[in-house]
């Protein structure tokens, strides 16, 4: 620990000593700190969204060229930490755009906030990431599902829209999920309800566990269940529920999407269980013929004119919208006199400041952000959240296994 501290301190001193000379001449860099190996599809999708938005502005901002740099942390928190150190030392890196996972940002939140790392999250959903540290400035902005709010959405949709009377929870036993359980329970409590069954399960459960889970659920007479799981365990549970012939509706977080979920859970099962998956509302926008989406897709590839053609389309949509917001903020900050004389650290601060106070509405795929963020002040817990409950939608799988808006 001491060694680490020393390393960080030395790096900090270097950062302070090295003058940000020639910064203007060489343009700025955006890091994409994501897992380009394990979650490559998501990372690349984000990168595509960001790049598409930057293409729209000619890959230049405030008269300076913008360069995207992949910082592959491979979900390794420590490697992510190195990225932040590199960023801090860099005289060109202006912002870091995150990837799918939350831990690399959660673990280093304090470092991020104390070292002024401008961090923008297009996918990770963990609630606390954007809620800052006591006594420090908050530097983490998000345009994605916020699990602090998704619980409420699940409950609202299930009970009010679909008329569920008895709601069960199927929860993977991880820190992320346990945090979400609180918001789910709170949302039910608001309606004077309790879960009829709360089933925690470990990662990589066996069939026996799944069968007994199904049996208990049946006994609980639940008519709906909210499931927070990875795809492997989620698939097993759903197949088991279907085989047990449970008449139940499943509302799942997006954790089940990916890899071979649809290959393992048949269309029949999916339909029988009325499986709905949490998403932002891009699909609805696409169905609604959102022109911005169409443009963006067209820019990516004229032939690929639909979200379904993109792998992990969420990353593209959120990356695109978030970059548009970032571009707007830079454009708003750059005309200022300070900008020209500012070193990279100051520019980061200027951009953060601009993000809090974007004056012109920013049109995006999911929304027109007016404004996307607010100054982070006591009580304003959602200030750095670009999306709210209203931006959440449920999707369902088509018979071919493609996600489509659940309407």
């Amino acid at each position: 620990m001491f060694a680490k501290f020393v390393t960080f301190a030395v790096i900090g001193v270097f950062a302070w000593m090295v003058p940000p000379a020639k910064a203007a001449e060489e343009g700025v860099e955006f890091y994409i700190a994501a897992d380009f190996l394990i979650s490559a599809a998501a990372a690349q999708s984000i990168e595509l969204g960001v790049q598409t938005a930057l293409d729209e502005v000619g890959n230049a901002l405030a008269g300076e060229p913008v360069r995207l740099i992949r910082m592959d942390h491979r979900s390794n928190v420590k490697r992510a930490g190195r990225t932040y150190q590199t960023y801090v030392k860099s005289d060109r890196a202006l912002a870091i755009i995150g990837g799918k996972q939350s831990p690399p940002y959660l673990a280093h939140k304090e470092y991020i906030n104390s070292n002024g790392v401008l961090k923008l999250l297009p996918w990770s959903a963990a609630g606390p990431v954007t809620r800052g540290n006591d006594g420090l400035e908050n530097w983490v902005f998000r345009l994605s599902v916020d699990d602090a709010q998704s619980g409420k959405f699940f409950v609202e949709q299930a009970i009010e829209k679909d008329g569920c009377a008895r709601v069960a929870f199927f929860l993977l036993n991880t820190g992320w999920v346990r945090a979400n359980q609180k918001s789910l329970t709170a949302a039910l409590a608001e309606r004077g309800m309790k879960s009829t069954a709360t089933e925690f399960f470990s990662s990589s459960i066996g069939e026996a566990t799944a069968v007994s889970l199904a049996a208990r659920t049946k006994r609980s007479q639940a008519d709906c269940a909210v499931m927070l799981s990875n795809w492997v365990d989620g698939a097993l549970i759903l197949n088991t529920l279907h085989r047990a012939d449970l008449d139940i509706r499943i509302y799942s977080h997006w954790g089940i999407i990916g890899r071979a979920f649809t290959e393992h859970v048949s269309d029949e099962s999916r339909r029988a269980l009325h499986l709905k998956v949490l998403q932002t509302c891009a699909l609805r926008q696409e169905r609604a013929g959102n022109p911005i989406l169409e443009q963006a897709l067209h820019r990516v590839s004229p032939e690929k004119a639909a979200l379904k053609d993109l792998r992990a389309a969420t990353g593209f949509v959120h990356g695109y919208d978030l970059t548009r917001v970032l571009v707007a903020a830079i454009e708003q900050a750059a005309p200022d006199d300070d900008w020209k004389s500012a070193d990279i650290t100051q520019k980061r601060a200027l951009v953060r400041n601009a993000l809090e106070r974007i004056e012109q509405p920013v049109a995006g795929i999911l929304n027109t952000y007016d404004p996307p963020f607010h100054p982070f002040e006591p009580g304003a817990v959602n200030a750095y959240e670009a999306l709210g409950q209203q931006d959440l939608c449920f999707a369902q799988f088509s018979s071919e296994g493609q996600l489509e808006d659940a309407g």
Partner: protein
Amino acid sequence: MLVDTLFSRVANSKVVLLRFWGLLLVVFVLAVSSSAVAFWMTATPFLEKEREGVITSQATRDVHSLEAKLERFRVLLEFVSHAPPIVDAVMGYVDSTDAIQEFVGRLKLPSEVSWVRIYDAFGEELVEFNFDTEAQNPLVGAPLVDLVQNTNEEVEGFERHVVFARDDAGAHIAMASPVLFQGFTEGVVVVGMRIDADALFPANEIAKDTYIAKSSAISAGITNVPEDAIVVPLSATDLSVVLLPDTEVIEAAGSELLTRTVGALSLVLIIAFALFAALGRAVLVEPHRRLEQQKKSLAELAAVAKRANDAFLVTDSAGRIVWTNPAFEKLSGYSGKEAQGQKPGALLQGSDTNADTVEEIRTAIRHRRPIKTEILNYNKDGGTYWVSLGISPLRNEQGEFYGFMAISHDVTHERAQREAILSAKREIEHQALHDSLTALPNRRALDIALQSRSQDPRADATVVRIDLDHFKYVNDTLGHAAGDFVLCEVANILREETKSEDLPARVGGDEFVILLGAGKTSEDGRVVAERMLERIQQPKQFEKKTIRVGASFGVASTLDGLVPIGQLIVGADAALYEAKDNGRNTVCLYTPQLHHTVQGRRSLALEIRRAIVNEEFVPFYQPQFDAKTHEIVGVETLVRWRSPELGLMAPNAFLPIAEQLSAVDEIDALIFRKATREISELRQQGIIIPKLSFNVTAQRVQNPDMFLDLPKSSETGYQIAFEVLESVLVEEQSDLFNFSIDRLRDMGISIEIDDFGSGHASIVGLMHLRPDVMKIDQQLVLPLTKSETIRGLLKQIVGMADLMGLKVTAEGVETMEHARILTKLGCDTLQGFAFAKPQSVEDLRVFAKDWQPEQSALLRSSTG
């Protein structure tokens, strides 16, 4: 010289043997040495190959054990590197190392593990565990950093990477394993271990030293290995096992193998050659040796025979003489030439030669059997001489008969001596078994005959026992010459009246026994006996005097089934006594009745013996009374046998047998002991018996032992009297008897004459004995009441006693009438049934207690 001998064509058996052994030895040495060379040439390459193989396989084994050990570490390492706490830590999900500490703490690590270090993806050490605090860790530094880096970077072949160092504490090896997340390296776990090479590769005969080295270092020449070292790389790592073979030991083992093989080969050859030697000797050398031996023996034999004192004679198979020795010539008088071609029998035997012996010799020759005998020969001059002759058939090696050899020597003189001794012996033997007077067989001859007869359990025997009557009279009256004449006459009668198969014998002075021939019955015996009796009874003339004798005969036979041969004489004796009891001059058979009596007597004798031991004889007392006052003045002690089986018996039932057994003295002594004790006891009870009298025999009086038991009158308080039979006065008047009587009298014992008047006692004898009391026999008392004569006689006897100062006791006082008369006649003491019967001590006690003399006297007077 030796060489000449060895190779000369003419050789004796010794030389042959020497040649044989020499050749054998040379061939043996050649065989062993050529085998050794052959083995050496063929085995050496094989041994070398084998040696290489052994070393290589040892090295391979060592490699396998090291690989196995490393594989265990690798498995452990993989397990550790996959552990979630470690993944979480290297991934940075968990900042604290507490979970790792806990996880590693729970692991059961092998003792060789000295440390574990965990690094993140950037080679930064997260945590370190040191288990081996004693040993230095020589692995830290650049090599370890390289290991971690190579592992993190997944450099090709990184899985083979190990860090290796050696120091005094052993071989230190560090192995690394990547910590994978979703299949990608995100950190490194390094395990350091210390391997005790001595324990892993224990020193043995093959390896001088075995150690671990880095393969790359060896190939790069950084680590030098000796030229003869075997280097075997490990498959999974950059390590090699270096084995330094212990060439000396291996070579020593090789040469030992050679030595042993040659040794074994030699042993096998020795056995083979020994077999050959044994067979060779038997087949080649031995016959040669034997032939030589035979030759030598024959020559020696001929020399011996020539010089021998015995006469030698050899014939051909047809029995004609072919050779004789000088001793033969001397003995027979024939020269060798004269004898040659002759038949020995025709040459040497003559008219007096025993024909049986000649026949015996002929038979033996016919059957070609050896024979040894004595024969009378004739010499050339016609003189005879005896020879001890041994004839043996001669056979060659193959056992074929080719003639006879006769060896003889002169035994004429020896024979004469032997004959003299034999005739003397025969004379002695005859004397031993015959009576010299009558020339009849004696008792010993009879015993031998009976003995030999009894050997056969089926044999029977009948004997006649003869005893001359009144022979003593002949001897006494006519002298011993007459007696001897009678005995010879009787012997002649016995000889003449018996058959040859009968055996008459004189067994004592006038006693004869005839053992009849087998199969003859007691009835046959009686016939013979009666015939003899008739002849014996006839008067005989001796020196112009006529002698008459008679004889009693007892006959017993085993054929009657009463007695076995051993008891036959006893049975005949019993029959003889029976004959004598029947009035002599008669013949009695041992009949079943007689047998029964004898048996009864015998069993009674046994009973008496037992009764003496058990003290079954008891005293009975017959009281004696004062003739005037009728007071009890004494008791006569009488013996009774109180037998548990036979009841109470009077003396006449057992005394005759007891006399035969010489047991009377013992019985008397017993009765004396009991009676004195009982009368003393009565006295203590206040019953006073003034006198206790016993019947004693003359023998008992003379038995010195008797005096030992006698109490003194002063001690007993009553008088002891001994009653001696009247017949003693006639028969026994020896000095010892008189001395003993005096001695008794000195001891205060009174002497009474018993049964006076029953025999012919002399007054002189009576005076000589000087008894105290005279007891008148009841034969005189009983007729008293009816015979005036008897009364007169008694009056005279009482008067005589009175004259001699003797008291008179009358026995057999049957009635009070008797008592009255006897009292009147002057008798002092009365004893009889009129007063009291003999009775036991218990009865006596009651009787004496209740006796009232006054009433008795009154009765007497009233009846009188």
